[in-house]
């Protein structure tokens, strides 16, 4: 199956099996280094990417759903200015995810930060995430390297930077 999509800003025409999961496409076809550890059943939460600006588990996205889609992996995300909000939040709080889950947890944090931006701009019915939601969403990645307080501190610090930025698009 031929699929046209945009991955990390590059327009690509992929020839892949229609049911191949996105995490395998990224690992096999594009050799994305941070997606090499995989559970294949959505239970580890290590394969989060942004699909059309929303965080998804890439192991649960089949190739045929990528037609015309925009995929942003952690590598691509690092090139956006929004990455700096989280980078600075990690520095300020002195806590950061371990190397195994760094990419995935960072993208989950980003999806939570986008909820703030959307709720403040009225673009979405999503409410600003409360503490329980933040801990639960980050808990999608099963790596225990951050405790709940650290997650909340990182999120609060990053949210402060994001609010200052007041930019709503990549």
């Amino acid at each position, binding site marked *: *199956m031929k699929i046209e999509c945009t991955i990390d800003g590059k327009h690509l025409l992929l020839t*892949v*099996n*229609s*049911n*191949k*999961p996105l995490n*395998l496409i990224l690992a096999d076809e594009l050799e994305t280094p941070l997606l090499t550890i995989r559970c*294949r*059943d*959505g*239970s580890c939460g290590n394969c*989060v990417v942004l699909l059309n600006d*929303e*965080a*998804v*588990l890439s*192991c*649960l*996205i*089949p190739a*045929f*759903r990528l037609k015309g889609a925009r995929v942003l992996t952690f590598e691509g995300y690092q090139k956006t200015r929004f990455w700096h909000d989280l980078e600075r939040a990690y520095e300020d709080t002195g806590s950061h995810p371990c190397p195994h889950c760094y990419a995935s947890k960072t993208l*989950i944090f980003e*999806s939570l930060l986008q909820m703030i931006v959307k709720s403040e701009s009225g673009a979405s*019915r999503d409410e600003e995430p409360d503490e329980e*939601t933040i801990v*639960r*969403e980050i*808990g*999608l990645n099963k790596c225990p390297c951050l405790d709940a307080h650290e997650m909340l501190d990182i999120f609060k610090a990053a949210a402060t930077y994001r609010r200052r930025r007041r930019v709503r698009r990549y």
Partner: protein
Amino acid sequence: MYEGIRSPAVHMPKTMSDLVSASTRFPNATFWAGGTFIMSRHDYYPTRDSNDIISLNEVPELKRINRTDRYLEIGATVSFEQLLTVGKQVLPGLLQMTLERSATKIVRKQITVGGAICTPQIRLALPGTLSALQAEVEVKSCMGPKTETRWLEINRLYDKKGAFLLKKNDLVTRIRLGFEREDFSCHIAAGDPMTNPGETVMLSFACFHNQSVVDRFRMCITFPTSMFLIPHEVDMMMHGTMLPLTTQQIERVVRSIMEEVLSSSDHEIPPIQVERSRRFIESALHELNAQSLSER
């Protein structure tokens, strides 16, 4: 590594009639809603015997949430997250609780209502909750050029052991819920049905009462791989009972349901599931009592 693996053809019908015709032409194809269950199987990919896929995501009728005077009608490919945006005024509290506890927001955006009902091997929390709320499902049977549509009570889709009873060419298209609100409801679950089905227990309970007299008592106990139990006898036994329940009444209900749980399974139920069920039932009844006392 993936040599010789066939790429399944993906059919994307845009209308209901296209969907019916696709399912008639490709009887072995797999209906694809959110895909979360299919893709979370360990043998999903690579596999040599992958069937063709009929994606349901392009059919607008299946993505709609309709509110009529009497019912809330939910399309089969509505995602959990989309359904939660309908709001507390429209969605029964029990359903809202079940959806929120099912997964994180990121995964809820992908799980569809129809998919959660039609998983072939395991029962998830949603069917139990919909059953406690006495929901109905619209089933379309595609038999050649003829299509038959019927509404069924959701508990008719499964047997006591949780086996899915619909045929391969039957398609769940809509779910219908009445607007009558339960006076008390609770959803208690322990374990993860996807990763640890042998230890997971889910209980959904809705009680309708009128001036402290029980009118309807709907409980559903689900073990992901071995049980989908609605104790109808207890429903009849509780009809007309005054709230709060006495200790003896609670003991009698728990004993009666547990007897049914133990006699419903052919093989031995793991002790942890038995214990969890017993405690969940007790806990639900105590909560019901607490609520009825606080209303006085």
